[in-house]
């Protein structure tokens, strides 16, 4: 039955090549099979004509943050466009795409509200000791210890945002409603925003109580949060990372947290996921999360709409949304 369906689709529907790590399945996009001849290298059973059809497929859907290398692209010589479905771009070899003249799109701002919400949730949790307090109550420790440790105020704090893109600007808007003051660092000053701009992260950090890391991971931003930045933040400052693990020098972060040289951290991402440094497991001023900031059904509905639109737009030669600039 499955094979018969494949044959039928092959004759009628445009080719769509999937590129995915085996751990990302496609249950989020059931519409694909009704509109495209889906060529999935990990399908079971495999498409009978995968080897030949994949050479002529012009459109690729890259699922989640699956790594896409120059070698991968060599296997699919006809690909003209890669529709991405992840907020980050570091899993794409963008230079290889540029050399081949391949268009690339990302998840755009589908995840931005959820990630911004999560960043604020982590900041409040770290400052007000929400997860630590929850552990304290669940452990049955409250009776007899009525004076639980004091947290630190959120309202009115100085927030420094590293990367004022679609996520960073949403974090700023949310924390402004708490009466926090916002400043930021990014590659260049944004002409349309009034927040104070710092052209380097150390200066931003010196003038912030809460540092929120939400820029893209590139060669330039690898370990952008190093020892100097964290020293500038100081022992009362906290870091929230909802970007990528490698934006922070994790070894330094762990050392400084253990020694009390920075005030706390809320981390949704890590350098070697799913590995998380165990030194952090006993700290009450740290909140740990399994790369979870994007994952709500609301986000996926927005992403599905974006992906569906971009796949259709490619064949109709219409403008793509959330296209990545490759120059």
């Amino acid at each position, binding site marked *: 039955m499955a094979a018969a369906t494949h044959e039928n689709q092959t004759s009628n529907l445009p080719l769509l090549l999937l590129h995915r790590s085996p751990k990302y399945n496609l249950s989020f996009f059931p519409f694909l099979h009704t509109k495209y001849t889906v060529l999935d290298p990990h399908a079971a059973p495999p498409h009978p004509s995968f080897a030949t059809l994949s050479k002529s497929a012009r459109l690729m859907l890259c699922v989640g943050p699956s790594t896409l290398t120059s070698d991968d692209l060599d296997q699919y010589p006809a690909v003209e466009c890669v529709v991405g479905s992840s907020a980050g771009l570091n899993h794409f070899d963008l230079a290889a795409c540029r050399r081949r003249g391949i268009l690339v799109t990302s998840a755009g701002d589908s995840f931005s509200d959820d990630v911004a919400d999560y960043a604020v*949730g982590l900041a409040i949790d770290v400052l*007000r000791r*929400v997860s630590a307090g929850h552990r304290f109550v669940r452990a049955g420790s409250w009776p007899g210890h*009525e*004076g639980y440790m004091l947290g630190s*105020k959120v309202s009115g704090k100085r927030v420094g945002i590293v990367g004022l893109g679609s996520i960073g600007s949403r974090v700023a808007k949310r924390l402004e409603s*708490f009466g926090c003051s916002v400043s930021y660092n990014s590659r260049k000053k944004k002409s349309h925003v009034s927040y104070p701009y710092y052209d380097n992260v150390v200066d931003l950090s010196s003038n912030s109580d809460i540092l929120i890391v939400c820029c893209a991971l590139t060669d330039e931003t690898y370990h952008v949060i190093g020892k100097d930045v964290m020293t500038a933040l100081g022992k009362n400052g906290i870091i929230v990372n909802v970007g990528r693990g490698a934006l922070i020098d994790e070894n330094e972060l762990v050392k400084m947290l253990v020694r009390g040289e920075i005030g706390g951290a809320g981390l949704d991402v890590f350098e070697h996921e799913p590995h998380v440094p165990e030194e952090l497991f006993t700290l009450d001023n740290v909140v740990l999360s399994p790369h979870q900031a994007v994952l*709500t059904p609301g986000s996926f509905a927005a992403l599905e709409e974006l992906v569906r639109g971009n796949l259709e737009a490619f064949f109709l030669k219409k403008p793509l949304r959330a296209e990545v600039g490759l120059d």
Partner: protein
Amino acid sequence: MDAIGVLMVCPMNTYLEQELDKRFNLLRYWTQPRQHEFLTQHAESIRAVVGNASAGADAKLIESLPKLEIVSSFSVGMDKIDLNKCKERGIRVTNTPDVLTDDVADLAIGLMLAVLRRICACDKYVRSGGWKSGDFKLTTKFSGKTVGIIGLGRIGLAIAKRAEGFDCPISYYSRSEKPNTNYKYHKSVVELASNCDILVVACALTPETTHIVNREVINALGPKGVLINIGRGPHVDEAELVSALVEGRLGGAGLDVFEKEPEVPEQLFDLDNVVLLPHVGSATVETRKAMADLVVGNLEAHFANKPLLTPVV
């Protein structure tokens, strides 16, 4: 003023104790093994009582202190103070309004995010090594959810302002409709609960608001709804809340307060959709200092015959 006896009824803040020690004869009630005798012994010198959200001045304490002139509470709520008795006796009462508004509102939003996005459950998952064996489940979006607020006073308004930053529509219930807001008014708590995703209790505790969140309200909120309580434990019928959560009739809860603190129903301990906190709504270093300064300031003003800073009675 160092001859004036100030009775502090329970431990609340080290800085406050230091500041009171500097100015008054501070008597630490909770350290006394024989409290009745202690009161009798100091009855003539105690002219002020300092209480908080867990212990204040009930009728019995007030009656045993003939020279009592003022009760200065290290809290905004006054449900632990017998206000009628104070009025009868001409005893002044002060609280610490405004200074803790931001903290309580911040925590309300923090609880909403922690419950919907399962932040505490995520943290537990990572710390226990669960991530290595698979991904955590999907969670629920917060931005855009309808937030229903019981009691649109200072704290309720501060919650509304923050939730608007997340594009959440705001609705509310209070005794009467407020003239100066565009938020949607509901004339009953059940109607409010039926029309919101997140219900937050932010009113004062009075006989009328005790168990204002009852079985009917919880059922109206429903299996996708979330209850946040940063008010007082007795606002919520806790037995009904526990059974609704255990039976899945309510989507989740974020609770900073409980009916019999520090006792927390153990049936809630293992639910991933519940976040439990030890009454820390105003528990920040900054705010506790501001509250302590108000308590001391009110006492100083009273004994210098100056106007009180934050009088209630």
